[in-house]
């Protein structure tokens, strides 16, 4: 499904990702753990096509098709979804109007029918309830005045709404309480399917108790320095990243 091969990314001339390779087969959930500043968000931005994060070398493919060089919205239409580590607030942009426009833009790009306002509203309300966002919040401009936790709920609402083929979740768990973590688990587990993949970036074992990963990778110094099964989460919690970063050095 998602294949990252020898990906090297420089920001302002500094190498951040260093020939990183990673493969997430369809139907699987992989987790990435790693110290602050190791390049986790850079990896998610590069896959999603954020301007300024064009790779120096290497490739990212989704189902064998390269994403490199595609516009961010083209990648979104192909099914790439990023749950942002720090989602922005966009004053003046009406939440529901934006999300319906975005959903229909993706669908149009894929040659699918437009979703009517009525159908959208129904689906939107259901998901809003699932993620625990009240109607008064949704009448506000996008993320306007939202707490960190509410913004993360809005990210999960969109994950449920867009039903992407491949979702990257960048520290969705940070700032969430136990109930919200459980909600994230419900949304992701509901969406898990043989033709969908997830890359879950986190610092904590907690989230991985709700979203059981098939594989866990340790990212340090811009490369994957260690990979293992779900049991690796406990090892990391116990011994920290050092045991593996030392191994890499």
């Amino acid at each position: 499904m998602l294949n990252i091969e020898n990906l090297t990314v420089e920001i302002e001339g500094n190498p951040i990702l260093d020939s990183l390779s990673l493969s997430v087969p369809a139907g699987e959930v992989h987790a990435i753990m790693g110290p602050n500043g190791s390049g986790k968000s850079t990896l998610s931005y590069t896959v999603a096509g954020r301007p300024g994060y064009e790779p120096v070398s290497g490739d990212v493919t989704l189902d064998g098709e390269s994403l490199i060089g595609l516009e961010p919205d083209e990648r979104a239409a192909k099914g790439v979804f990023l749950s942002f580590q720090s989602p922005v607030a966009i004053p003046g942009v009406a939440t529901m109007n934006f999300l319906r426009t975005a959903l229909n833009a993706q669908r149009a790009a894929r040659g699918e029918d437009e979703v009517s306002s009525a159908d959208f509203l129904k689906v939107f309300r259901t998901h809003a309830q699932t993620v625990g966002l009240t109607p008064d919040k949704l009448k506000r401009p996008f993320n306007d005045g939202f707490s960190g936790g509410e913004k993360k709920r809005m990210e999960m609402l969109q994950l449920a709404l867009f039903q992407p083929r491949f979702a990257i979740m960048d520290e969705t768990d940070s700032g969430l309480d136990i109930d919200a973590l459980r909600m994230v688990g419900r949304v992701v587990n509901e969406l898990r399917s043989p033709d969908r993949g997830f890359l879950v970036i986190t610092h904590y074992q907690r989230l991985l108790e709700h979203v059981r990963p098939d594989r866990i990778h340790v990212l340090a110094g811009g490369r994957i320095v260690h990979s293992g099964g779900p049991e690796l989460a406990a090892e990391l919690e116990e011994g920290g990243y050092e045991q593996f970063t030392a191994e890499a050095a």
Partner: protein
Amino acid sequence: MVGAPITYTAFEDRLFSGLPEGEIAEALRSRGLPGRRTEAWKWSDLRAALREERAASVAYAGSDPASPLEPEGALVLFCRNGEWDLPELPDGVRVSLDAPRPTVLPDADLASLATTARVLTIEVDGTFGTPILIRRLSDGSGTHADRVSLRVAPHGRATLYETHEITGAPFPNSLTEIVLGEGASLTRLVVQPPASEAVLVHTSLLDVCEDAELNQSALTLGGALVRHENRLVQHTDSRVRLDALYKLSGQRHCDTTTHVDYAGTGAETRQLVKGVALDRARGVFQGKFHVDRGAQKTDAQMSHHALLLSQGASVNAKPELEIYADDVECAHGNTAGALDPEAMFYLRQRGLSEEAARGLLIDAFAGEVLARVGDEGMRAQLERLFREASN
């Protein structure tokens, strides 16, 4: 400047020789038209824009375009190349077309020049529920002037909409004088669709008496050189909202200049001006609140925010507070910048094209000004006009 000999441009030569002898002619001849060297016009070089010879406008040749504003049931007054066309009048309003009353208006040479035109006087006594729409249609390549004088009697209420609908390359010079009597209230909207080749100066002089209320919004899409100048005097406990929005593309220019004098105590002013400049367009904002020693308890806020959407676009802003009273609350803010790249990427990650994301953020930026327009129908029409102007 005093005593410096002026070499008139071809336009000035013709304009000045056609003026009736008197104070206005003298004043204009001694200074010439305002331009780069005039402090108040340094970013709007009218003199240079009008350099070429240009005759008085001939009769309006085109057919009337669809109005950019369509207020329901409005009383519509047409001014075509400076010639008024008056409809039958309903009760509750008096309208007359009077002979010119040339007057030298201080610090407003173009307004003074417009006083050589006939005066359309509109008088409202009680509550006049019918909105008054003044459509100024201009075409050709000549010059013409018009003067409107609106008086709302004490405790009266009125709504005034004004459009400048310009095709071709004329130079219309408009003057609107408004007196809001004690406790009177006026809602005013000024709309100017794009006019790439035209030069337009519209001066408004407003006297807002004690306890009166003015709610004003302007939407302008610019021209070769466009200046909307509003000069207000606010009396005790008057309340004014003085908003403007501009969106300029191509090589268009628009200058929003406002000057508020406080002649009483406890007056309130809320001013929000926002602008979007694209391509090689040039926006200008000059705002001044002049609070004299006696104008205690004045509460005035001025903000100007501009979005610069290309390398070649520019905005010049000069927000000024001139305060001589000690017990006042006055503030101003001014920013200029590009679209937030974080927000752009976020919207595009969710599937919006660059164009759609840009459009959404530009509309959101402008929305803050338009949201302050009370009438829902008018607000929707302004939103459409704003959105339809190219991004």
